[in-house]
């Protein structure tokens, strides 16, 4: 019997929530993560330039700017990790071959897998960061956090295609999983999560323009950190991000399918 995409999502939801509720460390991590991440991003951000320099160049509140970054990062990491790194965890547990044995494409399952964590993280980020924004900037900022969160979720979904390519490369690499820990921070850095892309060298800015995540971060920051955000610019970023997703998702699916077949030809799948 072939499972539908909904069947796969339901399976992933149940699996995720059972494990989540059973592992206390996961609950603690979820509670602590938004705060820790904001602190980390502020720390890394100030390493690239002082807050004074930041204020001269960017017309935004640095604290809210970094808050928007951490929010987007938190949500985007779900996709990068649940799709890209899923192969690593599954291989270690010995479940990867069994996931590849289901009577539908593995890519479909991989696409369903981040949905539960994405839903939980988005809701949690709103619950944690919206009150912080309200305290600092008022109710409007709280609303902006909610909107930002939606944009970040959309941004994360737009990253699916690239995450699938990363996942495919990881299974082809015959256990060279350390590549992932290089790719991951590189993507985060290039997408401007730690510091504005506007302050990066031109070649990095061009690279950054190829990542949907960059537009999600840009739109989120405009919404949350700027005094009078221009809706037109936000919409442009959302449109560009969606356009890239339309290009990358089918490309990601095709590339993943090719890489999976290639892995099976080379005998690279570890059992």
């Amino acid at each position, binding site marked *: *019997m072939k499972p539908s995409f909904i069947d796969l999502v339901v399976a992933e939801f*149940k699996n995720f929530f059972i494990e989540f509720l059973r592992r206390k460390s996961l609950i603690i991590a979820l509670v602590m993560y938004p705060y820790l991440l904001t602190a980390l991003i502020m720390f890394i951000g100030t390493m690239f330039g002082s807050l004074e320099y930041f204020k001269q160049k960017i017309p935004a509140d640095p604290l809210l700017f970094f808050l928007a970054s951490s929010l987007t990062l938190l949500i985007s990491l779900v996709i990068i990790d649940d799709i890209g790194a899923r192969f690593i965890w599954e291989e270690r547990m010995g479940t990867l071959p069994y996931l590849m044995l289901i009577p539908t494409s593995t890519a479909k399952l991989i696409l369903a897998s981040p949905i539960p964590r994405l839903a939980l993280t988005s809701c949690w980020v709103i619950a944690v960061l919206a009150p912080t924004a309200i305290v600092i900037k008022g109710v409007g900022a709280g609303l902006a956090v909610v909107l930002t969160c939606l944009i970040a979720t959309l941004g994360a979904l737009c990253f699916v295609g690239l995450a699938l390519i990363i996942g495919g490369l990881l299974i082809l690499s015959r256990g060279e999983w350390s590549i992932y820990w290089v790719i991951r921070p590189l993507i985060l850095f290039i997408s401007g999560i730690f510091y504005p892309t506007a302050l990066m060298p031109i070649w990095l800015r061009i690279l950054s323009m190829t990542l949907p995540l960059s537009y999600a971060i840009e739109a989120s920051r405009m919404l949350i950190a700027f005094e009078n955000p221009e809706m037109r610019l936000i919409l442009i970023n959302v449109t560009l991000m969606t356009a890239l997703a339309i290009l990358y998702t089918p490309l990601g699916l095709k590339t993943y399918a090719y890489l999976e077949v290639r892995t099976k030809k080379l005998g690279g799948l570890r059992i």
Partner: protein
Amino acid sequence: MAKKGIEVRELVKRYSTKIRKGFLRSETKVIEALRGISFDVHHGEVVGLLGPNGAGKTTTIKILATLLLPDSGDAFIEGYSVVKEPHKVRECIGVMLTVEKGFYPMLTGKENLEYFGRLYGLKGNYLKKRVEEILDLVGLKELGAADRIYEEYSLGMRARLSLARALLPNPPILLLDEPTLGLDPPSARRIRELVKNLVRKDGKAVLYTTHNMFEAEIICDRILLIDKGVIIASGTPAELKKLVRGFRAIVLKLREEVIANKLIKILNTSGYEKISKIKEGELVNVKILVEDPERELTTILKLATSHGLEIDYIAIQEPSLEDVFIELTGAKE
């Protein structure tokens, strides 16, 4: 004759492997894992793929399970090609690859099965009923392990759960790769009994790999002896034993491996060729295949005592599947 469940035609698989020649230098070597093997498995039979490590057993299972693509040749599961219709093939197979892992450690046995069941498109009450049924069938309910988390499972329980997952979608074909490897005798026996029952009652076609001769002899209807990627002999256990007809085995049990090695050396120089050595607990068994064991025994004992070698136990046996295997592959240990 029953319908063919598995048809394997001229399967060839080569792997490239790197041989390290120092810190940075390496050489690529091509290993021929399968060299054009062909065989069939009919519904209602267990066919054993028997061979030493590296013979090509797991490669065959992986290709049939669509986890590996052959370099040439094809295989058909219920008529579907593993190369061209892998999704259709996956709907027909239940696979057991390793017994020690392959499940989510924080989920119970039942939750793990429910998760995999959903991935197979089973849902609602049917899924719940099926999971209960299977847990009962493999004896995990009886052990009180259905609601225990997988992390706490013993190897025997893990093997049962692995078989349960393979049976969950009720596939007509089972591909079992060394399903009793490392299990204690009662757990291994339970797995074998289950497989045997499934074949008799449901008419499933089972491909069962093992390097345990005793197991192959008791569970398999037919055996394919595989070595270095080639099927070197096939038939029922009785038919295979006929390949060493005319021979019987003298079994000598010795206390130390050094003594066994010394004895083998002496026997070799005296013209005995069909000799094998197997460790059995504290003792070492040396088995010599001869045409007239009653006559040869006197000579062998004379040789042993003249060299001061102490023998603990002597027996004359009919040849086993193991002897066939050693005779055909030339494996000594």
